[in-house]
């Protein structure tokens, strides 16, 4: 007997271009689906229904830490950042390490503290719009990437001059089509090395910023080891850049394709907050969460999983589940329905959620307001999504800022 297969191969080229038909097929036909990951040919499962994904993210019987993973998984070379400082990022720590590390950074990112960055965010966005307007070949992804880089640089306390290189490194790090066996690891190492350089500089020039506070937690109070310090700086750079860039990019694209929603956002600016929640639900940037490993032999969503089994939480699919949202495939910026899992759930829920929401709530309406005639400069079928499993990432998104009239 052969297992029924979804319309496109998971994490193959066609899946990346449009994963939604495959995800819908999985939700309806095989909600806990066994398959083999293209890198390392590792057997694993993918969960696609909202209830299962949310439960998986909050279930203490699972861990994100590859210490719990099956031997096949480790041998297949899939442990994120293996052999680099990245293997100690917060996303893959268990309590009590997770608790110790998360509490060092959380207070910087609460909604109240992030609200203080509202004026700087507007300033960054206006400056980036000015810069975009001067480009010969304006690309929304350049705009979308520059905003999180500037904000995170301000918060950490060093300019992230090399953020474009980092975006490329992040994408290579999570590629399912690596150039060679070592390409993923080298990309992680490049990110860690960038972090180490910034830390060395900051140690000589401490100031009133998050990086200095984390360095003080290391050097002064010994609440972090050196690897954890590097991993924390690296994860803050990694987690906020490509995610936010693509939330902004995919949302602008969604609006260009839906003139009614575009008009609504311009006519009713007060909808910006529900709009951002809807953008996070509809195409929120993050496609799937990190692997979850069963810590024991267990039953999950009707499937028996041996200890060590890796399960992928498909948050992008959960957020389109018609069991939770009527008309889930329709973008409706006035929706006030139940909460999505676009920013995760449970222990590892997004630390930067308030910042991501602020950046999106400023950057998306602002570009639509500044360029009300903006159109895509190529047919939409020509846009390409990167073959990276974590984030739904548009390679380039050329536009005509003033429509068909002037350039």
């Amino acid at each position, binding site marked *: 007997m052969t297992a029924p297969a979804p319309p496109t191969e998971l994490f193959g080229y066609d899946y990346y271009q449009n994963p939604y038909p495959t995800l819908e097929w999985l939700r309806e036909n095989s909600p806990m689906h066994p398959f083999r990951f293209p890198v390392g040919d590792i057997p694993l499962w993918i969960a696609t229904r909202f209830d299962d994904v949310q439960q998986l993210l909050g279930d203490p019987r699972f861990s994100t830490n590859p210490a719990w993973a099956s031997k096949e998984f480790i041998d297949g070379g899939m442990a994120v950042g293996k052999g680099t400082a990245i293997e100690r990022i917060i996303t893959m720590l268990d309590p009590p390490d997770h608790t110790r590390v998360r*509490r060092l950074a959380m207070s910087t990112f*609460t909604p109240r503290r992030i609200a203080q960055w509202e004026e700087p965010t507007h300033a960054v966005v206006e400056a980036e719009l000015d810069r975009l307007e001067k480009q010969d070949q304006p690309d929304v992804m350049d705009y979308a990437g520059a905003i999180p880089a500037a904000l995170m640089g301000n918060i950490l306390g060093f300019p992230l001059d090399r953020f474009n290189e980092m975006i490329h490194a992040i994408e290579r790090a999570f590629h399912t089509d690596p150039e060679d066996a070592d390409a993923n690891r080298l990309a992680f190492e490049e990110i860690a090395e960038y972090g180490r350089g910034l830390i060395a500089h900051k140690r000589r020039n401490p100031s009133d910023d998050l990086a200095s506070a984390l360095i003080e937690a290391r050097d002064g109070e010994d609440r972090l080891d050196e690897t954890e310090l590097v991993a924390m700086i690296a994860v803050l750079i990694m987690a906020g850049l490509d995610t936010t860039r693509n939330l902004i990019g995919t949302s602008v694209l969604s609006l260009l394709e839906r003139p009614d929603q575009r008009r609504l956002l311009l006519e009713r600016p007060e909808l910006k907050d529900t709009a951002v929640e809807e953008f996070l639900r509809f195409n929120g940037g993050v496609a799937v969460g990190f692997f979850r490993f069963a810590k024991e032999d267990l039953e999950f969503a009707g499937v028996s999983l041996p200890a060590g089994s890796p399960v992928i939480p498909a948050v992008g699919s959960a957020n389109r589940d018609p069991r939770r949202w009527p008309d889930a495939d329709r973008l409706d910026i006035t929706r006030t329905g139940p909460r999505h899992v676009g920013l995760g759930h449970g222990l590892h829920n997004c630390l930067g959620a308030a910042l991501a929401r602020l950046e999106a709530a400023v950057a998306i309406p602002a570009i639509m307001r500044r360029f009300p005639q903006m159109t895509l400069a190529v047919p939409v079928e020509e846009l390409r999504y990167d073959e990276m499993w974590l984030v739904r990432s548009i390679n380039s998104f050329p536009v005509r800022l003033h429509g068909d009239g002037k350039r």
Partner: protein
Amino acid sequence: MAVLRVDPKACVASGLCAAMHPALFRLTEEGLGEPVRGDLTEADDVESAEDVAACCPGAAVAVLDSA
């Protein structure tokens, strides 16, 4: 020893508290965090609740000294 509160207006329904310490926190139908018990008498529980308070993305958890 201490009083445990969740401010429902500040809660962002992350589900962190209930995943981190299911004995102390649970989620409502809407996904908001709420204390299982309002009074904490064990020192361990107070410490655990303080850990959750420091990790909560909404800064919605308060652990207050009871007089």
